[in-house]
């Protein structure tokens, strides 16, 4: 049996369990009938999953502190020392959006022909409403949370403007601009402004 075959079988079983977290024999049989080529792998998964009994797992038992202590550093090291693959991927995809693509994507994700808004979002200067983030996430095929991490990081890393000595004190923006402020600053027609502001209705 090839590794690819095993991986494919595993994938099928794991996805099946997402839809049927407590499958019975009939559910497993249906899966076998749908994927007879993986019958043995499915049967094996059914046997192993069936070997867990329904004892109430919420009953109080001593927490295994020893196991926790022995492994937590390893997990924390991994979390802090390795970048999130989804954030890296999101960053790469965002970096690749350039030139005329920005306007095309703006229209595709429902913002309209206003690249300045998408540019601001991608640079972390404008807080995008959830509906826009959702559309962008679907378009780029990266998780929303990863997008937000990239935008936040871009905003934090953005160059702080230098100031020549004047009478006033220099001001550095510490927060991204709200969607409403960004839309209103474009001074579009009333209809377009309302349409764009409505994008943040679900928030």
């Amino acid at each position: 049996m090839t590794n690819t075959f095993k991986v494919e079988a595993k994938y099928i079983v794991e996805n099946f369990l997402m839809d049927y977290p407590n499958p019975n024999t009939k559910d497993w049989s249906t899966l076998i009938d749908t994927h007879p080529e993986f019958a043995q792998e499915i049967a094996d998964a059914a046997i192993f999953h069936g070997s867990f009994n329904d004892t109430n797992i919420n009953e109080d038992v001593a927490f295994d502190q020893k196991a926790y202590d022995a492994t937590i550093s390893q997990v924390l090291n991994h979390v802090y020392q390795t970048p999130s693959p989804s954030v890296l991927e999101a960053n790469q995809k965002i970096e690749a959006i350039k030139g005329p693509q920005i306007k095309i994507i703006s229209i595709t994700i429902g913002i309209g022909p206003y690249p300045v808004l998408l540019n601001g979002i991608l640079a972390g200067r404008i807080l995008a409403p959830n509906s826009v983030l959702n559309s962008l996430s679907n378009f780029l095929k990266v998780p929303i949370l990863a997008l937000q991490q990239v935008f936040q990081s871009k905003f934090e890393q953005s160059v702080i403007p230098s100031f020549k000595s004047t009478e006033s004190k220099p001001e550095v923006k510490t927060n991204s601009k709200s969607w409403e402020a960004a839309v209103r600053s474009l001074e579009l027609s009333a209809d377009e402004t309302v349409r764009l502001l409505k994008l943040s209705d679900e928030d």
Partner: protein
Amino acid sequence: MRKRDPKHEASLNTLIQLLPEHIERLLLINDHHNSEYIASEVLASLVRARYSVQSDLLGLITRALHRRVIIGIHACIRRNETLRTLAIGNSELVQDTASYFWEKFFEDEQLVPNYEVRFGVYLQDRVIDYMRHLLTEENTRESMDTFTSIDEEGNSSSYIDTVSDDLDDSPEINVMRLQDQSRLMSALVNLPQKERNAFYFRVECKYDWVKVAEFLGCSIPKARDLLNLSIEKLQGALK
């Protein structure tokens, strides 16, 4: 593309608007009946995206999730006879399984990994993977398919071909069907794969012999023999 539970999605979106101090307070809630309890799927999403990596908050989120991983693995062991047996001989079973779990967690590159969909199911699936790995290491028994039988004249043939081909289900099968499901499955786990699968296809799923043989990739008589072998071993294990 698989999607998160809308309830988890909403919870995630709400959570990331909160101040870090507020999230820290919520992380202390361990009772999943509490309405403010953060679902493990949500914590997993935050860890995966390295949410708030510049602060200590990510560490706190990771610790909370790791705590649940340890509790979950411990619960799996308590619910599984084979794992309980393996734990007797391996005092580090929980931590080894936890390390394996996290290795798989960090390797997953799906857009929405299954641990963000159903964390408990994903965790049990990884525990099973690790259990299978341990059983494979431990199980040095040869498959019956490789045994050979030598007759009086010195001719050798595959053992499996020498077993009689009785096409009716034995009375033992009916007894097996009445067994406690998890106990039976637990005993099955310890059999060689072909034997346990033969049992599962025929006794559990009640497929006809043509199908059983097709799934096992062998002849009907061989499938019958695999079933008989599994029954013989199960009878011993379930006594």
